[in-house]
């Protein structure tokens, strides 16, 4: 008796497992994988990136879908944790058999998920910034819309040149990005007549950086490039004020946050320049995202997520098939082309249907990719602190 029951249960179970696959086949949906952090350190950005993708998918579906199919997003949580992310990626790849995974955020997560993707010929789009990610042997199955350290340092150097500074000192925390950033800054600044008068790498977690500041000021720079994190940059800024430094200071926006600005004494932060990657706020694609999402100022992450799904949908339409390899082989016909510029997935689909050659320009930037999947350009937002508040200097 027991045997019969368990066999029946097994049969039922098998039927239950098989059912969704049958339903899927009949529904003729195009499934795309989403793997953003919904919990963990990325829980602020992940859900907003997901919403941005859902909004584009809804627009595309309302306009008739792609290849005659409605888009269905299969969403998994990467928990901002490489181990959980790999499990989720395997589920998307092996069970759902999606052609693309959109969304990894933390660099460590992307490093872990990328091999799962390229080995299964699944396309991956990411916002992770570490230089090493695009240097992985991913065979083209990866693009990222976030500027890497190299591009960031280039843009920072160009800003310093525009500011008319002549003597730069680089004060950095001990971190993986320190040396590559120093090198790139020097490579761009020196031929443009800006001297890098010195550089110094300091140790984190110190209660005072007086001696380090003395070292830096001895070179009498007119701009200090502060490449650290919030706790140490706060101390360095105080020590610079105490030492009567009056030149310019440039740092990443994550090292001098809105919150830190409220806490630090106003004289300490006065005049500090900050920089962050920015969405392309003047582009038609950004305007469309504002309308679609109903938010006044979508940030860089929402803009990048908008671009991923738009690029993927247009690539699938151009390739005429939804496989990871087809996306890999065709994506640059959408992003790196000299065709008619389109700014939304829906407009692009219509143009492709009309037989036109198109170039998608995104909300996050021009979305032109190098051979290894890095963007060639994007906008950066430069702010300056005035009386304890950020004031926009330029978006370049």
């Amino acid at each position, binding site marked *: 008796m027991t045997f019969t029951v368990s066999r029946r249960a097994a049969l039922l179970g098998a039927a239950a497992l098989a059912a969704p696959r049958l339903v899927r086949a009949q529904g003729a949906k195009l499934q795309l994988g989403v793997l953003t952090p919904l919990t963990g350190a990325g829980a602020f950005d992940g859900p907003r990136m997901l919403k941005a993708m859902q909004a584009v998918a809804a627009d595309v579906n309302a306009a008739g879908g792609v290849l005659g199919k409605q888009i269905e997003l299969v969403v998994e949580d990467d928990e901002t944790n490489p181990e959980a992310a790999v499990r989720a990626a395997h589920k998307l790849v092996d069970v759902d058999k999606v052609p693309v995974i959109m969304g990894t955020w933390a660099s460590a997560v992307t490093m872990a998920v990328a091999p799962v993707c390229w080995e299964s010929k699944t396309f991956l789009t990411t916002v992770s910034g570490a230089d090493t990610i695009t240097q992985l042997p991913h065979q083209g199955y990866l693009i990222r819309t976030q500027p890497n350290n190299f591009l960031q340092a280039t843009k920072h150097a160009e800003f310093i040149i525009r500011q008319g500074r002549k003597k730069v000192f680089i004060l950095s925390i001990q971190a993986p990005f320190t040396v590559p950033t120093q090198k790139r800054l020097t490579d761009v600044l020196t031929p443009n007549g800006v001297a890098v008068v010195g550089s110094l790498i300091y140790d984190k977690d*110190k209660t005072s950086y007086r001696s380090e500041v*003395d070292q830096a000021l001895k070179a009498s720079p007119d701009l200090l490039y502060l490449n650290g994190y919030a706790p140490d940059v706060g101390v360095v800024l105080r020590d610079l004020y105490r030492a009567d430094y009056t030149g310019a200071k440039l740092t990443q926006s994550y090292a001098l946050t809105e919150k830190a600005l409220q806490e630090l004494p106003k004289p300490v932060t006065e005049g500090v320049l900050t920089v962050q990657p920015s969405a392309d706020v003047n582009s038609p694609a950004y305007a469309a995202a504002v309308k679609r999402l109903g938010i006044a100022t979508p940030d860089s992450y929402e803009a990048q997520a908008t671009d991923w799904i738009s690029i993927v949908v247009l690539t699938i339409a151009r390739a005429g098939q939804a496989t990871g390899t087809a996306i890999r082989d065709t994506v640059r016909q959408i992003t790196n082309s000299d065709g008619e510029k389109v700014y939304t997935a829906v407009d692009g689909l219509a143009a492709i249907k009309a037989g036109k050659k198109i170039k998608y320009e995104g909300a996050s930037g021009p979305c032109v990719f190098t051979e290894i999947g890095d963007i060639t350009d994007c906008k950066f937002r430069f702010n300056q602190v005035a009386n304890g508040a950020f004031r926009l200097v330029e978006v370049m």
Partner: protein
Amino acid sequence: MTAALSDVPQLVLNGVMSGAILTVPAIGLTAIYAVLRFPNFAVASHATVGAFAGYLANVMLGWPLVPAALAAFLVAGVIGVVSDWVVLRPLRPAGLITVTIASVALMIALENLVRLGFGNALRDYDLPILRDWRFAGLRVGPQQLEDLAIAVVAVGVLFAVLHLTRVGKAMRAVADNPTLAAIKGIDAAKIALLVNFVAMGLAGLGGMLIGLDTSIDPLTGFRTLLAVFAAAVVGGLGSIPGAVMGALTVGIAEELSQLALPPDYRTVVGFLAILLVLTMRPRGLLGARSY
């Protein structure tokens, strides 16, 4: 990039200033070791607690520096007594290793309690920031001098209590020989309580002094733990004058190391100091039995 020889006076001055602040929590650590014979890692989280108590007094209640520093001392002291009574005291019979590990757990728990209440954001005391004073080619911050004065007064009061009062002598007696002290009718449990109060209070005061020059967050105490341990070990764990010597030595050595090493190796100095002392002179500069 390393410093030049001409920088030595300024480096020594910077080292004295940071060493003086380090003295306060280092005495806390060494005093507990002297009486209870275990390294209490929870000094780090009590430094954080003190920093936040001082922050509340200074920013929320608008108290000036000195009363806020007193609040830091008292709150950290009381929490030190309570946490020892509830967590560490019941484990003492289980031996040194158990209590030491429990103190690590206590440190993590307290730190996270602070995080629960205040979050991870950096906070600053409500004090005016002043330019440094310059004299004879050197520079020193008014805030540093104020910190130094507070540290000197705190350490001075502690020495006076230890040497001039009955209770101070009792503390030294228990530290020197608990059995003999018990025979003389000194209640070791009461002394342990008192030492915990004073030691954790000093840790809290030290946390606030560190925070005055920087910003505070739940990791404020933990960040300086290595330096505090190095100071106590270099001076001789259990020796209070040793902790003063050790803290100044570590403070100055960290700064002078910049003559030979790039600044990103500063933390190495703490480890090197511990390594050298434990190898060459395990009892520390002053030996473990001086109070």
